[in-house]
């Protein structure tokens, strides 16, 4: 149990200190106040699903072995696990639905400020969905695609389309044989809730199988749709230069922080901030201009497409406000801490919530509506400009910490990155793995958590992996964290990477750690793995690839869903702290051992980041051996 919450990040420490001095609690204090955390909760042995309870099982075997209904530790923890997964899957998938709905509105001409930005991708995905292209106008194609995508959510029977068009045959076969190939996105979530009601599914293995099905509906369904539509509406990212950390908030600018996840809002705010009239207005108010900065994954969305600076990850949301220079923090959905409302009482910052699904007491509410997208965004920007003069000088404390980075790698871009327009290919990556220059690929994703090292573990793990020639891909807050320590620069290869990986980075001109986008963009890791299989020579299915993943500092239920869709797709996933099932030996055994015989993937729970890195390395080594790949070139 971590009780010392000082982080390694200088900017965070400065502003954390300032907040303490101002008697404002931050997540770290609140964490300490919770200690010791509830043991029953951590072990997953508490059940509140019905009014016989709450019930709890005695982990030491002395008290109750079952709940009032008779559910034992296995059933209770598996039910809890499935409910967590369903929530995570629902959250990401709802994000995907928002995007698909916006695509529909755009195709019908019912929006303001939006357009089809990536036609090539629209046509490609439309074809994949069986939309006849012919000579149809673009908006008709977009409409048909949007409708077909929305149908994926409500489908009652059949199979999710991406589960059939994208993964290697072996994964499809495993899912079919184990009846975990999702039918419709919403249906699996609803069924998860139904199964976990008292007296429905009382077999822990059966519950976990549905856990995987629910997660797959996210990874190959909701999240994947989110990524694809975001690319279509706002263009597929390509590498951009940008800056990260709280130093991007500048005293002499009007600062607007966008926070949340869905780029439908943040893209418009960025667009509005470019409006000349508004820029002039800001200047009239004495600012040098308008500065947009992001927090959390909406930051990643506008970072990878527009190079908009990232103020910080999820843990830093309160600290951004603590700089005293944020005129507006505008939020949509997910990972927005209710604690923010306390800050409104102290700072001049106006907090604006925008989504009917996500309201906050104490926030101003401006409902976002795509039909007036740009106008509403301008309205919000104007509020920020007007608020510039309300700053409380005595509370202004900006920091200088900001780090350059490269972001914006995608499954599609890798083809061009490695082969140019004419020889677009994954071959050099597969060759590098085959020949032992690159050991394999690791995905480091997910959140930051004061229970562990408040994000720093991502840096430790990434550094250890690249030192051992593992190419690292990242999304979400993990990527923001590594950016702060400079791992997302091409120069980092020469400082940290092993010789083989270094040669590849030098040949291609890439950082050793690649930023793939927001947390829904974990779908890009799935599709990139499919591209590696398709290129050939390093495994014929996802479970054969020398790859591994970690969401080491996870906090969110979304991370559980992400982890499960990777495990169900055949990959190893490491969590620094286990999800709350440890009270059941059977469930733990199933997740960490038995599931491997079914899907080829499995869970590992390991709190030491260095050990976690080596578990991933050893897993990759094992896959290399099974594939009879060459020994590592420089060992």
């Amino acid at each position, binding site marked *: 149990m971590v009780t010392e919450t000082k982080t390694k990040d200088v900017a965070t420490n400065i502003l954390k200190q300032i907040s303490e001095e101002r008697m404002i609690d931050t997540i770290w204090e609140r964490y300490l106040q919770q200690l010791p955390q509830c043991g029953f909760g951590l072990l997953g042995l508490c059940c509140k699903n019905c009014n016989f309870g709450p019930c709890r099982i005695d982990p030491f075997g002395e008290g109750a072995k079952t709940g009032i209904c008779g559910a034992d530790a296995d059933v209770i923890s598996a039910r809890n696990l499935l409910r967590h997964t369903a929530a995570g899957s629902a959250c990401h998938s709802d994000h995907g639905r928002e995007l698909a709905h916006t695509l529909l509105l755009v195709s019908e001409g019912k929006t303001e400020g939006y357009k089809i930005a990536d036609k090539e991708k629209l046509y490609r995905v439309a074809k994949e969905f069986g939309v006849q292209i012919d000579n149809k106008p673009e908006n008709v194609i977009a409409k048909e695609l949007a409708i077909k995508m929305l149908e994926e959510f409500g489908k009652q029977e059949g199979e999710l389309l991406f589960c059939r068009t994208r993964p290697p045959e072996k994964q499809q076969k495993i899912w079919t044989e184990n009846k975990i190939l999702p039918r419709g996105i919403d249906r699996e979530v609803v069924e998860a809730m139904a199964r976990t009601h008292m007296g429905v599914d009382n077999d822990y293995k059966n519950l976990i199988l549905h856990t995987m099905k629910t997660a797959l509906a996210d990874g190959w369904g909701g999240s994947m749709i989110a990524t694809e539509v975001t690319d279509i509406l706002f263009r597929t990212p390509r590498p951009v230069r940008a800056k990260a950390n709280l130093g991007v908030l500048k005293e002499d600018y009007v600062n607007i922080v966008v926070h949340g996840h869905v780029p439908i809002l943040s893209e418009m705010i960025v667009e509005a901030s470019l409006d000349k009239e508004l820029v002039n207005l800001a200047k009239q108010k004495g600012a040098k201009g308008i500065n947009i900065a992001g927090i959390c994954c909406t930051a990643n969305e506008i970072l990878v497409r527009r190079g908009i600076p990232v103020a910080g990850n999820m843990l830093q949301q309160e600290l951004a406000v603590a700089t005293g220079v944020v005129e507006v923090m505008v939020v949509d959905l997910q990972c927005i801490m209710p604690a923010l409302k306390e800050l409104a009482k102290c700072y001049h910052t106006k907090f604006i919530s925008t989504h009917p699904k996500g309201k906050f007491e104490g926030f101003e509410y401006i409902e976002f509506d795509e039909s007036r997208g740009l106008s509403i965004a301008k309205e919000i920007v104007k509020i920020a400009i007007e608020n510039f003069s309300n700053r409380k000088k005595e509370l202004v404390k900006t920091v200088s910490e900001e780090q350059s980075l490269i972001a914006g790698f995608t499954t599609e871009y890798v083809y061009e990155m490695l082969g140019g327009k004419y020889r677009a290919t994954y071959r050099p*990556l597969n060759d590098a793995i085959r020949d032992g220059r690159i050991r394999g690929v690791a995905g480091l994703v997910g959140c930051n958590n004061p229970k562990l090292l408040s994000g720093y573990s991502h840096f430790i793990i990434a550094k250890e992996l690249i030192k051992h020639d593992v190419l690292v891909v990242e999304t979400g807050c993990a990527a923001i964290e590594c950016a702060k320590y400079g791992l997302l620069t091409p120069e980092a290869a020469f400082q940290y990477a092993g010789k083989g990986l270094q040669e590849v980075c*030098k040949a*291609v001109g890439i950082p050793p750690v690649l930023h793939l986008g927001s947390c829904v963009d974990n779908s890009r890791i799935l599709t990139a793995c499919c591209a590696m299989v398709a290129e050939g020579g390093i495994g014929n299915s996802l479970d054969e690839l020398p790859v591994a993943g970690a969401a080491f500092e996870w906090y969110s239920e979304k991370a559980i869903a992400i982890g499960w869709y990777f495990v169900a797709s055949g990959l190893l996933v490491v969590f620094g702290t286990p999800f709350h099932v440890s009270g059941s030996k059977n469930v733990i055994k199933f997740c960490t051992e038995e599931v491997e015989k079914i899907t080829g993937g499995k869970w590992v729970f390991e709190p030491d980041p260095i050990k976690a890195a080596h578990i991933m390395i050893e897993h990759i080594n094992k896959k290399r051996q099974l594939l009879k790949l060459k020994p590592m070139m420089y060992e």
Partner: protein
Amino acid sequence: MSKMIATKAIKGAHKIVSRAEKAIEKILTEYKDKAKDINIAFPDTAYYLPFIYAMTGLKVQKLGDVLPILEYAKSLLPEVPSDELWLPYLGDTLNAGMATLFAEEIIEALKYSLPESFGGKTPTHDFWIGFTNDMILREQGIKLVDGRMPGFAAIVGAAPDTETAKKIITQLQERNILVFMSATSPVNGKQICIAEQLAEEGIQMGWDVFLVPHGTDITSTIYALNFASRAAMSFGGIQPGKAKDILLYNKERVHAFVIALGEVDEEKFATAAGAINFGFPVVADTDIDQILPTGICTYEHVVSPVEHDKIVNKGIEIRGLKIKVSKIDIPVPFGSAFEGERVRKEQTYVEFGGKYSPAFELVQMKSMEEIENGKIELIGPECDEIKVEPEKLPFAMPLGIIVEVAGRKMQKDFESILERQIHHYLSFAKGIFHMGQRNQNWIRISKEAFNSGFRIKHFGTILVSKFLEDFPALVDKIQVKIYTEEEKVNQLMKEAMKIYDERDTRLAGLTDEAVDTFYSCTLCQSYAPNHVCVITPEKLGLCGAYNWLDGKAAYEINPKGMNQPIPKGKCIDPIKGEWEGVNKFVYENSNRAIERFYNYSIMEFPTTSCGCFECIIAILPECNGFMVVNRGYSGMTPCGMGFSTLAGTVGGGNQTPGFLGVGRLYLISKKFLVPEGGLKRIVWMTKELKETLGEKLKKRCEEIGEPDLLDKIADETITTDPQELLEYLTKVNHPALTLPPLM
């Protein structure tokens, strides 16, 4: 890439594209309204500007067509990588390389089209070859197919001195690697090309000897790459515009690499980046960054610095070429690159045969006991035992070469096949010239070879080594007897002639009906994946290089090779030449593309062509007959197309009724176009064909009861105009006009 290379290559790309842009601007200013209609073309090609055609499918014919290509090349130009926090540059650099090649082809095409704007000369002048026309492309293509040419090396720049230049070139020639030469690098303060170093030494260059000087301008390097692009379209049958397929075809099948000698400037880096798109790696003698990870090329992309004596082997290694270097114990270099080398009279020390002395060569099968393996006997004087005044050189000596072979799988039928190899083997030695065969042969040893220590006995050394090396399945034991006394030579020649006659008689009796097995040849499937040659006793392979006996022998030599027996099976139609077994074989071996074959027909289910055919037969509907044009004929034909253009329509493994690629000797076969009426249908053929087939063709005409047919067949000296041709045919009463209508 490395950042250093990427930076230089991208800068170089900007420079070369800008050169093309300026050249065009100048022309636009000078010619104003007329500029866009200026014809832009390379000589004798059906592929327009071949690299551009291959990559985009666009047919550039006028300057106006060039403008969008230039704009496109500009759009491919990326930014130069920044000093810090650079964006990925590998893909960008490859794009920059492509932009460079587009611009280079534009510049070189302008030089041909508007020579007055480029100093009054086209790139083809003095010893510079410049653009390779389609005819040569096809001739050399065969060498790529049959392995005589394992790949090519494009040398840019010059060696530090002439000696080094010669050494590198000889190493390449010994390995039979085709050499392209272009661009310059500074040597003793002067910008020169390696080709100029060779010229200075009086070294023969040209396609015959695999040494092809393209030009001193870096832009002339495009000729190597537009050669490679055409190879993919012509032999690979890949459609123009299928850029990635064409580039990958080169990566997989055209084994080429770049040798950068001397300073590598930005333009050279840019061009090399273009070559890497083809999968052609670079070896350099200077210390530039290396690009070791693989993927765009099969192995390393750039390796440097490599010492001059290792540079050829390094190139071979990183291109993954598998080359057997024949190490034969003779005092001169040896390799097929020297096959085309000429030894002129004034260069000759001694010669044999021709019209100067009696000479013959013969291969005979013997029993194992009769042969002492590896024994070489010279019966008579060696050439250095005859004292000749230097001013009396060259002199002639009689020569009889009898090669005796034995082997468990050897058959009498294979003697002639082995005997034909003598020509190649002796020619492979540098300074040795060989022509003809049997008792019609003519051999020269150059003064240079003689001074290096080459003697008559070395003919034996070559033959023993090569037969054992190339035919291990047939030849277990071999001995060679070489006679140089006139009386003995004359006496043995009489016996040899008896053997030649016996062979001819036996061959004449070999008919398609007399055998139950034909042989396939899929040697060209590496280039034309759907093509299958069916070789029958009366119809040889369309390249002219393989007859039925060759196929049979090749199968004995390598039962898993490209020549497989085809059981004829039930005969469906003896006139058209259709058999169940043949159809089945062709279907299965053409990737299920070809369902049936009429082996003797041109109009219905004709046989396919790879691209290597010696001759093309084409329909002339207005004359109710066909014309025949041979490779090497560069003029126009009555069908309105030259050989190259026609070849483009015939090759690639497709069935194209009315058009057929054939070997020359098929014209005198009894099975020549039987369903259409045979020879009587031929209304036009090139003069060269008439002359080379001469007596045999005449005899065949007599056999079919048309003794004066040969005179009735027109050639280019009579006309190449279809209307005039018809008038001529009517005048001479050509039998084709009385045959049933073809269409």
